[in-house]
């Protein structure tokens, strides 16, 4: 067991992959800069060479498409999109190509690409530099989508994603980078065996979340505990294909459900969570209507006066959950 930050977890995952798998390489904007993606890829170019750690022109579409192409010939590329907002320009290669090649070519083709997409928000960066569009990718059959919330997952899900024969969207959030945790040694886990995990057991209300929102959920659970409410926190981890069972089982126990999500509400991942519970948990088992806690229906503002209300914090969340549990 070592204490490791989330950012170091990512870096460690890259090091492990590049060291262990000669066919693994990484490509994207900023990879020759020591801070473009925080410290999460620091000096990889020096350690593994600029042929395997490839910085690129400002060409999201072709970069992503090329990585898909390389993956079709035995490589394990990890594409880096330093901001999810920029990745919109790569929608065609991701959604029309990577997600579909296996199915539409009869099952024999493996677009085994991993696409790392960073949620990079706050700091008055504004509407085009803040988006969290994980729901978009979770909507697309053929893509696997993971959002690590812990340092261990930051490392291990990156490894599982890269070793997976399917295209995986790996989404990390800069707001998580400084979290630290005890982390065990690496053991490779097949991604298709990964799913939601109960991170904190509880009895009164179930909270499901992913990525940074999982952290908020854990913090809110602490706040709630002080008011005598026991919250169970399920970290979703894998958004697509999504295994509802751990959440369903939890809600059947607590009778109350809240989804916390850092994206927008309408057709967001929180909608999926509520829909899943609505489909699978008998209404008689529910003590209250389910709740979504998400961004307001607005683009990200810049002014800090507005950022403060735009992003829900653990106290606001705890307040909404107290009402739910009342």
């Amino acid at each position: 067991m070592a204490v490791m930050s989330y950012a170091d977890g990512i870096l460690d995952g890259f090091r492990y992959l590049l060291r262990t798998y000669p066919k693994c390489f990484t490509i994207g904007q900023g990879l020759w800069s020591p801070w473009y993606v925080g410290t999460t890829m620091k000096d990889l170019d020096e350690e593994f060479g600029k042929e395997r750690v490839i910085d690129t022109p400002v060409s999201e579409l072709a970069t992503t498409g090329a990585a898909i192409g390389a993956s079709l010939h035995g490589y394990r590329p990890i594409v880096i999109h330093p901001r999810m907002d920029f990745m919109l320009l790569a929608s065609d290669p991701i959604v029309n190509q990577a997600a579909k090649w296996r199915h539409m070519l009869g099952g024999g083709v493996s677009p085994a690409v991993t696409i790392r997409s960073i949620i990079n928000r706050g700091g008055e960066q504004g509407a085009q530099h803040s988006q969290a569009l994980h729901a978009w990718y979770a909507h697309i059959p053929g893509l696997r989508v993971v959002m690590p919330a812990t340092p261990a997952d930051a490392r291990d899900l990156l490894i599982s994603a890269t070793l997976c024969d399917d295209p995986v969207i790996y989404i990390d959030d800069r707001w998580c980078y400084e979290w630290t945790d005890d982390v065990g040694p690496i053991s490779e886990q097949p991604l298709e065996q990964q799913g939601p995990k109960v991170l904190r057991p509880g009895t009164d209300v179930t909270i499901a979340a992913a990525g940074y929102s999982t952290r908020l959920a854990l913090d809110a659970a602490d706040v709630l505990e002080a008011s005598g409410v026991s919250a169970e926190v399920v970290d979703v981890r894998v958004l697509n294909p999504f295994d509802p069972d751990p959440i369903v089982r939890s809600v059947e126990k607590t009778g109350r459900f809240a989804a916390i999500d850092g994206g927008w509400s309408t057709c967001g991942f929180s909608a999926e969570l509520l829909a899943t519970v609505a489909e699978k948990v008998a209404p008689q088992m529910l003590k209250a209507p389910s709740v979504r806690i998400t961004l307001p229906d607005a683009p990200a503002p810049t002014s800090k006066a507005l950022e403060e209300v735009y992003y829900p914090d653990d106290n606001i969340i705890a307040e909404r959950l107290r009402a739910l549990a009342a």
Partner: protein
Amino acid sequence: MELRTTLGALADPHSPIEPLELRNLPASQLTEDLRTMVRIRQAEAAVGDMVESGEAKCPCHLGIGQEGVAVGICGALTAKDRLYGGHRAHSQYIALGGDLTAMFAEILGKQTGTSKGMGGSMHLYAPETGFHGSVPIVAGTVPVAVGAALAAKMDGSDVVAVPVFGDGACEEGGVHEALNMASIMTLPVVFVVENNLYSSHLDINLRQPFDSVARFAQAHGIETEVVDGNDVVATRLAMERLVARARRGEGPGFLEAVTYRWRGHVGHREDIDVGVRRSSEEVAAWRARDPIQRLVDALISRKDLGEGEFDAITTHVQGEVDSALAAARQADYPPVKALLDMVYAHAAGGR
């Protein structure tokens, strides 16, 4: 928009047709090329008939009239190279030696198809021949092929990747990004544009300021060749030059092969969906530049093809086509479970 031509006679259906120069290519190879062109034409004619009869339902884009390009470029490739096609890719599939039964089966949505019946005409796949997939998103395979070239380079191999696309595809921004990437990374990729002067219903002069597209590659410092795509010999030789450079690690190439499709954009008709400014005279003039007939004429005049030999070829090929089609018709449709079984490599995950 006034016409600004840089292609000149190459794009002008009424300019005199140069007799095909066979250089000193051996008769055996040229006859083989002829046979392949005939195979493409007759297989595509059969597809056209199936579209007409309603037997084939998926969208089929025929390349009849353009056979010289596919056969010319594939003549410069080996099965270890990596060709990627677009919506009009039957010809490249066949030119690389793709199995006719599997192609017809795919078009008919049968389990024995190139893609197990999951893709239809626009999604062929035969990696053992060097045909690594085709998709109808215009320009969709261009960056993918650049990545295949990157993989080849990383492997230290002399494999070349070849995206085949159209003049219309050059209007997609992704192509320009891909050209830049290939150029700065010195990748072994030869971009092939079948410039048939049309994108769906619009001729190139309604869409671009010039009728030649090689200028885009030149802007990216990429070696270009512009050829008469209806001259299979010239096409092959130009492709060989570019492929050889790429194999030697000297970087990407770009082949613009000027040609013309005889049918409409999609489907079997010659008189519908052909181009809003396309006239029957234009089509007739281009038919006179038939890549097959020109090769036949040249072979006959060089005495490489005897009396009745061409007829024998077409008859033989028609036999191949007919029996392939019959076999494809016999095959089964995919089982319903194929729908969910092929979405991911492993059982739908997480459970």
